């Protein structure tokens, strides 16, 4: 083992106590080592209990109710929106729209902004490292409207090709939609510079923040991004809640997406007048408890500090890359630690990623194996599946040692 400087400013031992599931044994005597936070994060007690309390004390439908419960529920829901605003440094909480997840947020933009603003022949620029959530909505739209889709290519190292990006911008795309951080290779893209360049050619920008917002400070005003999408469940929050942030003028121009209660000002037989932002885009009873749970998650993350979290994950991934590099026949994808977040994907000669994950699971090590909803990137790398370990604020250097030891057991078992 090389000589590593294992430093972090987080009190991880204490943090781990906040996450009940981390005390679990997956089988008698086999403690859980959860290295799958890129798929979904675990939840601290404060988030679980906030929702619990809501259901036990204040549960009611919101906005239209006059009784005490409805007022408490409305206030808590809108307070959660304000917490998101502050977390993103957004100008107004009206620009924070609650959706189910990143996927729905991107689809909202595709259906509402896309269907109304784009026309046949228009170019939408994506990248080869996108998650299916930031590909398929545009495929569906392209099919409907006759759009042309272009992709910024990805280097063997797993970085966006800057020269290719600039060439593609010359095509004058109407929209540039890209991921802030790859969920496969972990690459953190230089979003601010790319957004500025895209704006120079008149493109609207959409940032897939599913992997960035949970892991480091994302400031929508600093980025000057037009749309940002992310999911609560990947940032210590519950399932069933996500966010679309958008610039006010864009959101105001956009027609409604889903129709129903709450998104209207007035309805007669045959016509309606849409409500103001953000309600225009929140049709029907929203995920009330889940929004409140997301608010609690933001409180939790803010208390720990996003910069400290990012630093900790960086230390973990540096260590992991070093340790994994020692293992023969392991191929690691993605750039060096300084260009990425806490995600490591790899393959092993002669053993399918699924088998790696399965054998690791026997040691309590939970990783993910597959295409991670990024088939085109895997096609680019000419592999069907990778094994992926990913880290969050609650992971330790020790757990990475466990991962490495478990990988050696895979090699033994398969004789490779």
């Amino acid at each position, binding site marked *: 083992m090389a000589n590593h400087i294992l430093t972090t400013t987080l009190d991880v031992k204490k943090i781990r106590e906040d996450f009940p599931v981390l005390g679990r044994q997956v089988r008698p005597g086999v403690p859980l080592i959860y290295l799958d936070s890129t798929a979904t994060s675990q939840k601290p007690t404060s988030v679980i209990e906030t929702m619990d309390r809501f259901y036990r004390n204040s549960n009611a439908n919101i906005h*239209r109710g006059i009784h005490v419960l409805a007022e408490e529920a*409305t*206030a808590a829901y809108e307070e959660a929106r304000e917490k998101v605003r502050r977390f993103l440094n957004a100008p107004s909480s009206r620009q924070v729209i609650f959706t189910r997840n990143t996927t729905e947020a991107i689809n909202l933009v595709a259906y509402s902004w896309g269907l109304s603003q784009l026309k046949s022949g228009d170019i939408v620029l994506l990248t080869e490292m996108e998650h299916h959530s930031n590909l398929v909505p545009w495929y569906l739209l392209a099919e409907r409207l006759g759009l042309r889709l272009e992709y910024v290519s990805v280097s063997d190292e797993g970085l966006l090709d800057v020269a290719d990006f600039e060439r593609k911008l010359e095509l004058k795309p109407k929209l540039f939609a890209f991921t802030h951080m790859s969920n496969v290779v972990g690459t953190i893209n230089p979003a601010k510079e790319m957004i500025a360049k895209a704006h120079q050619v008149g493109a609207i920008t959409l940032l897939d923040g599913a992997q960035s917002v949970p892991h480091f400070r994302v400031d929508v005003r600093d980025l000057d991004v037009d749309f940002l999408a992310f999911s609560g469940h990947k940032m210590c929050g519950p399932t069933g809640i996500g966010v679309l942030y958008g610039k006010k003028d864009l959101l105001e121009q956009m027609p409604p997406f889903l129709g129903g209660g709450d998104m209207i000002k*007035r309805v007669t037989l045959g016509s309606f*007048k849409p409500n*103001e932002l953000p309600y225009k885009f929140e049709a029907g009873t929203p995920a009330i408890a889940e929004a409140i749970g997301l608010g609690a998650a933001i409180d939790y993350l803010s208390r720990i500090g996003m910069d400290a979290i990012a630093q900790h994950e960086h230390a973990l991934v540096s260590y992991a890359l070093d340790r994994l590099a020692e293992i023969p026949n392991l191929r690691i994808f993605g750039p060096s630690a300084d260009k990425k977040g806490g995600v490591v994907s790899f393959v092993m000669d002669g053993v399918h990623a699924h088998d790696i994950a399965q054998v690791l699971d026997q040691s309590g090590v939970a990783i993910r194996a597959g295409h991670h909803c990024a088939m085109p990137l895997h096609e680019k790398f000419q592999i069907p599946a990778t094994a992926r370990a990913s880290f969050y604020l609650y992971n330790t250097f020790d757990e990475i040692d466990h991962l490495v030891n478990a990988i050696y057991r895979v090699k033994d078992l398969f004789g490779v």
Partner: protein
Amino acid sequence: MDDFYRELIIDRYKNPQFRGVLDPADISFEDDNPLCGDHIHIDLRVGEDGIVREARFDGKGCAISQASADLLMEKIIGMHLDEVKQISKQDILDMLGIELGPVRLKCALLSLKVLKAGVYGLGEATDDLVEDE
């Protein structure tokens, strides 16, 4: 209960002092609270000096929205339009003298929203006008 429905509110609701229509008027505007069907129409007569000379409201709705409109009309007569623009959410709450949840707040602020949209000459009354953001 009686705390909430202060005598003032029930009284102004049942016996409004500034209900009516001004024709002609210098500034007129109307809007509703879509959540409950409250409707407020406001007419103002304003002097060359920008001072509100006369103010009337018309409409229908709950005690809070109607009493608040009545009290607001009383308040602005004699004010300069620039002062009217400065009236805040808190001013209305102070005027009513009660605490309000988020839904009833909309009832209470409807008349201010309509008033401000009229005074600013806007095409539409939006919640931004009455939020202390």
